[in-house]
């Protein structure tokens, strides 16, 4: 599904054929050479034809930070808003124009520091927006200050003595906020990233995707310890719905529950696949999803893939439903009657 013509059905027009090229705008991307954002942009542009939306029916809304430039490079409608607030604009747009496909592009500082409240509430209201959060664990655009996902002890320009704050786990926040789709991918895993974005785009409801992204200027190698090609199979676990949680180059390790705690076990010596947890992204009970969102290298392999994917009626559909119900029940509003409501009296000439 790279650059081949993909048949797609636009929501309100003739069947159309779009390719990645159709989604490339006339603005040249201006991120630092080697930035992980280039890959995220490319995978998003490749995924877009999959959804069957005409370009004019897709809107990208961003906040502030390096991620904020993203909409300029997408040949769709785009709105580069203010710091942390993209979910609010997206919510209002989606509520009033439910037929549009609305994406929010954000970063770890934008989404989890200044904009934390909006992430919480757009997710819990199941607003049908697709939030893609680029997590480079640093403030890049402002040139290297500590972020809410920076490591404890990390030295940055504002924490020369080391950060005294414990980092936030973005996917735990998304789950706690009742996001109906929660996933993680990595900028340097193009196929996995494209697949994750495609699945996010097809989900109806509040969607939160964390993309582990490298800032090669201000926080180079933030994820390298487990994402590098030669270690990733041993230090990450690729989640697949319905499959046991197995990882390792030799697929010889897995995760099982010991009481209420997860533990890594080696298969063999009486331990079989039967003992391992089986990934169920559709489980209403989020307990295991919370566990997957919380475990991390070096204690555990880092999970990537779709962690949670449940179906709930979306905010825009519920809102529109109340409008439709009211019209069905009371008829279309009559302005004259509304103005003349309540007790009235007439003054004669």
């Amino acid at each position: 599904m790279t650059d081949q013509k993909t048949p797609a059905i636009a929501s309100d027009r003739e069947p159309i054929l779009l390719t990645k090229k159709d989604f490339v705008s006339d603005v040249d991307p201006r991120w630092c050479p080697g930035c992980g954002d280039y890959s995220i942009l490319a995978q998003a542009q490749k995924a877009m034809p999959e959804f069957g939306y005409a370009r004019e029916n897709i809107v990208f809304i961003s906040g502030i930070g390096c991620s904020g430039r993203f909409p300029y490079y997408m040949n769709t409608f785009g709105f580069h808003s203010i710091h942390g607030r993209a979910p609010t604009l997206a919510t209002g747009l989606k509520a009033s124009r439910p037929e549009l496909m609305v994406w929010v592009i954000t970063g770890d500082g934008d989404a989890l520091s200044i904009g934390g409240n909006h992430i919480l509430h757009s997710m819990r209201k199941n607003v049908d927006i697709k939030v893609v959060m680029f997590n480079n664990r640093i403030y890049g655009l402002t040139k290297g200050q500590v972020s809410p996902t920076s490591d404890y002890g990390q030295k940055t320009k504002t924490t020369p003595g080391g950060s005294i704050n414990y980092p936030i786990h973005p996917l735990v926040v998304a789950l706690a906020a009742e996001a109906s789709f929660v996933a993680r991918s990595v900028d340097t895993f193009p196929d996995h990233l494209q697949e994750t974005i495609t699945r996010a785009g097809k989900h109806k409801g509040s969607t939160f995707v964390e993309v582990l992204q490298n800032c090669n200027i201000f926080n180079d190698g933030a994820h390298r310890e487990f994402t590098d090609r030669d270690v990733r199979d041993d230090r990450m676990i690729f989640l697949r719905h319905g499959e046991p949680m197995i990882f390792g180059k030799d697929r010889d390790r897995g995760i099982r529950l010991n009481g209420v705690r997860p533990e890594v076990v080696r298969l063999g010596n009486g331990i079989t696949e039967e003992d391992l947890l089986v990934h169920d992204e559709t489980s209403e009970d989020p307990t295991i999803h919370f566990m997957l969102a919380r475990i991390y290298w070096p204690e555990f392999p880092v999970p990537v893939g779709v962690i949670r994917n449940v179906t709930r009626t979306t905010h825009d559909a519920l809102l529109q439903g109340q409008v439709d119900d009211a019209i069905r029940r009371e008829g279309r509003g009559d302005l004259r009657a509304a103005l003349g409501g309540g007790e009235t009296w007439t003054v004669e000439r």
Partner: protein
Amino acid sequence: MSTTEPTTESTTEHEIAIQELDRVTVRFAGDSGDGMQVTGSQFSQSTAVFGNDISTLPDYPAEIRAPAGSLPGVSGFQISFSSSPIYTPGDAPDVLVAMNPAALKRNVGDLVPGGAIIVNSDAFTPNNLAKAGYASNPLEDGSLKEYNVHEIPVTTLNARALEGLDMTAKQVDLTKNFFALGVMFWLFERSMEPTLAWLEEKYAKRPIFIEANKRALMAGYAFGETTEIFHTHYRVAPAKLRPGTYRNITGNEATALGFLTASQLAERNLFYSSYPITPASEILQQLSLYKNFGVKTFQAEDEIAAIGAAIGASYGGGLGLTGTSGPGMALKTEMVGLAVITELPLVIVDVQRAGPSTGMPTKTEQGDLFQALYGRNSDAPVPVVAPASPAECFDYAVEAWRLAIRHMTPVIYLSDSFLATGSEPWRIPELDELPDLKVANRTDPQGFYPYMRDPETLARPWAVPGTPGLEHRIGGLEKLDVLGSVSYDPDNHHRMSMLRAEKVARIANDIPPLEVFGPPEGDLLILGWGSTYGAIRSAVERLQGRGTSIAHAHLRYLNPFPANTGDVVRAYRKVLVPEVNMGQLLFVIRGTYLVDAVGFNLVRGKPFQISEIQMKAEQLLGDL
């Protein structure tokens, strides 16, 4: 109370005098749990339906239930009604209804000399007297001798009227305000019908409450009719208002109806996004009832989200509207700037209250004018409109949208607590009297650029998502003139700053001139804005009646000012600007027009009284 000929007629076995009055001001006061707001608004409703001109002012504590019987827990509702047009809820009440000692203590000082006091004597227990800080019982110690005091054991009489109903003593007690209301209905010859109809609707599912309140109301009325404590009842003839159909309306109700109307006139869906805040919350509550008009309401997680969602809706081609009060305005500031630079239509309602910070949430003030005009980073011009009376809130809600759509700009609509909660009769407009708000979205991709402009208004096109061929990107970064791409070019930024300013300035060509009430030139002009209208107009009418050279002009447009404003303020020897703030319009007028205007500034959380404006004007005229 201004009176004419007293007459006498025989009604029951008692001889009851009937006194004709021009204007009466009544204040209901009681514990915040006593239902004084309901009592006051029911009395207002009947009085409006009777045909008097009315003006009302609720005054309630911010605490939902301050300790019962305490001074901070006193809730009041004032209504002035008249047989001729009136503009204010009255300076000093002629009649005070006090349901307990605290209500008496808090309000008796405002009463006109010789005014009437009706008290619930049952509430004057040693305990309640102590809570109100009375060392002795004012009903017995002679301290009220300059007033005309009527003691009624409301609690006892009301309980007797409700005997036999299956209700707790507490529930019975909660209806005693309707007994007092019944007494007042009798005293001023009001019909009980609107209230009885209201009860039927309000308690449709609790018939016992209908029966209980009805009995309380009728018992109060009968008490007035049969008792000998009142020797007079009062008649205020209907006022001669402009012909038409009227309803009594508060500012917040009129505001909500205005926005609903704007959406119907513009044929665009209204999206109202707000965060609860006193005194703006009623607008969100009321608009949430208009779903069958396609109105969508959104209670956002905070003030910033509220305006952000509204901008999102406007970006999508809807009418994105947000509402708040001063503290919420402060939070929305950055978003207003975003709407300025993206040049999207948006209306921001600020129902002002006393500040700074949380201030006095239920008390009125005009302190947010500077915030509306200037409260943003950099040069970010925003049109500002301000209605002058509760009924006018309707007109300016529509007007705010007309300007926002036609000129592609955010517009700030400044109401205040006095307008929002006060009420007056509103002549319901005919639909064909209302302006046309329809504008077309841009649909033609040929020659389209996001920041191309209408040559007359300088408005940019409304190019909404979903329009084929118009895909483009906007945002908070400075844009290249016409093309709309991001630009850091110095000359372009200067040009765009000038264009944004010029676009708003040109609105002066699209609004009516400032009207003057009184001589077009002379000794003194009183220039006001917002809710000071009634007090200024009444004071000016009184002084004009004495042959003084005085005029009144009232600004509904604070940015830009009407084109003739400079000519008006320069045509008088003195200009007085009364404001419920420390002199904000004054500062702008002096700075803009270089006139030596003087301020009159009282910030007490309550409206000006007519007499205060009058005295200040007399003082200035005396100095000439």
